[in-house]
């Protein structure tokens, strides 16, 4: 029986044709790891599920980009982190208690942030970071404990750039704490 094909978005290259089998395969392989990542950052099962769906939709919109990756899991991990950081920022705009919540997350997960105040400060700095890429790099480094090589691979930049972004983040975080 031929498989049904969904045409996603405006007509594009052949990668725009996504079969249900493709979706199912991707889902079965990566859903758990993605859900875990989203839940780790968002601390809400429902929102984590929403975010996970968003990640899959984003990937399926342009499957050729995904297929070109040597490590699909790494690619998905990066997209999930980016989307969840955006959601946390949106949450921060409407929720006065977000800082405490995120600080709790960071305190539990980050080996580097020992005290509540330090974790809170780190949370504030990450979420206040205007540049989304720098925020993600700081999260990977300070919360996830990823090496600069791993971060470089995740964000598609050189180690030098990652190092520069981390230094920039540290400077900005220090400046913010001095002003506070």
């Amino acid at each position: 029986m031929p498989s049904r094909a969904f045409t996603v978005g405006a007509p594009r290259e052949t990668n725009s044709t996504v079969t249900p089998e493709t979706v199912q395969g991707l889902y079965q392989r990566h859903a758990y790891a993605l859900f875990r990542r989203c839940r780790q950052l968002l601390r809400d099962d429902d929102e984590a599920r929403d975010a996970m769906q968003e990640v899959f939709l984003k990937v399926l919109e342009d499957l050729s980009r995904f297929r070109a990756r040597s490590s699909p899991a790494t690619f998905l991990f990066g997209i999930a982190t980016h989307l969840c950081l955006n959601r946390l920022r949106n949450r921060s705009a409407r929720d006065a208690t977000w800082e405490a919540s995120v600080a709790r997350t960071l305190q539990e997960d980050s080996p580097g942030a020992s005290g509540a105040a330090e974790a809170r400060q780190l949370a504030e700095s990450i979420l206040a970071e205007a540049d989304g890429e720098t925020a993600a790099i700081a999260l990977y480094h300070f919360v996830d404990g990823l090496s600069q090589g791993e971060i470089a691979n995740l964000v598609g930049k050189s180690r030098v750039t990652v190092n520069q972004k981390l230094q920039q983040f540290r400077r900005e975080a220090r400046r913010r704490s001095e002003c506070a």
Partner: protein
Amino acid sequence: MNDVRTHPNALDWARYFSGEVRWLAGWRFRRHLSACASCRHLEADMAQERAAFDASPLRREELALLQARLVTSPARAIPKKLPQLPWAITAGIAAVAIVLVVVRAPPQPPTLVEKGRDAFTMYVDRPSGAVALGSRCAAGDRVIARYRTERRYLLVLERDGSGAVQVLHPRDGVASAQLSAAEGTTPTSWILDAAAGQECFAAFFSDEPVETNLASQAFATSPTAPIVPRATVRVQCCNKEPSR
């Protein structure tokens, strides 16, 4: 993970559970697990959680939802935000009404197409934007129906946890309404009331009007697969909780 003495980080675990830790990295990973009791316990916990995650009926629903979202609307075609209503007002009304009908402007039509099929998806207005209705919903959620069809008529019904059926579209209609476009959203959105239980929405697509009595009876009898002659039916359900 470049060293057997290093604990796996979040990315290592994600790759591990996606089946991507192989060859030398896989050997390092296994060596580390054999030597580190805390990581071994963590791995066992996660493996157990993954088994439960994969076995959960939610997964099938989510997969179906994902495929439905691909059919009915790419992310960029759905407006990120439905027009805002004062939530204090809507929450108050939702407590006493089954659904509150709110007239709103139809969003942009989707650019995604699946020819020859009738597609129906309910969307919920969440703070992060409009998202497809999942397996769980809550009192106060504002929902709207999005459809795509080659049929001429559409009827949308709602069935609550007690089995009561209500006509959502056309509002208080006795039969299906003729569609003005092959794809779009219903002209109204609805606020879910506070009664907990399974909430189901059914769309009846047809070439001739379907009587609401006939469709309601079918829906009341079979909430997940109502059958009405010469109509294609699409159903979406969620377990409603008193609050989010």
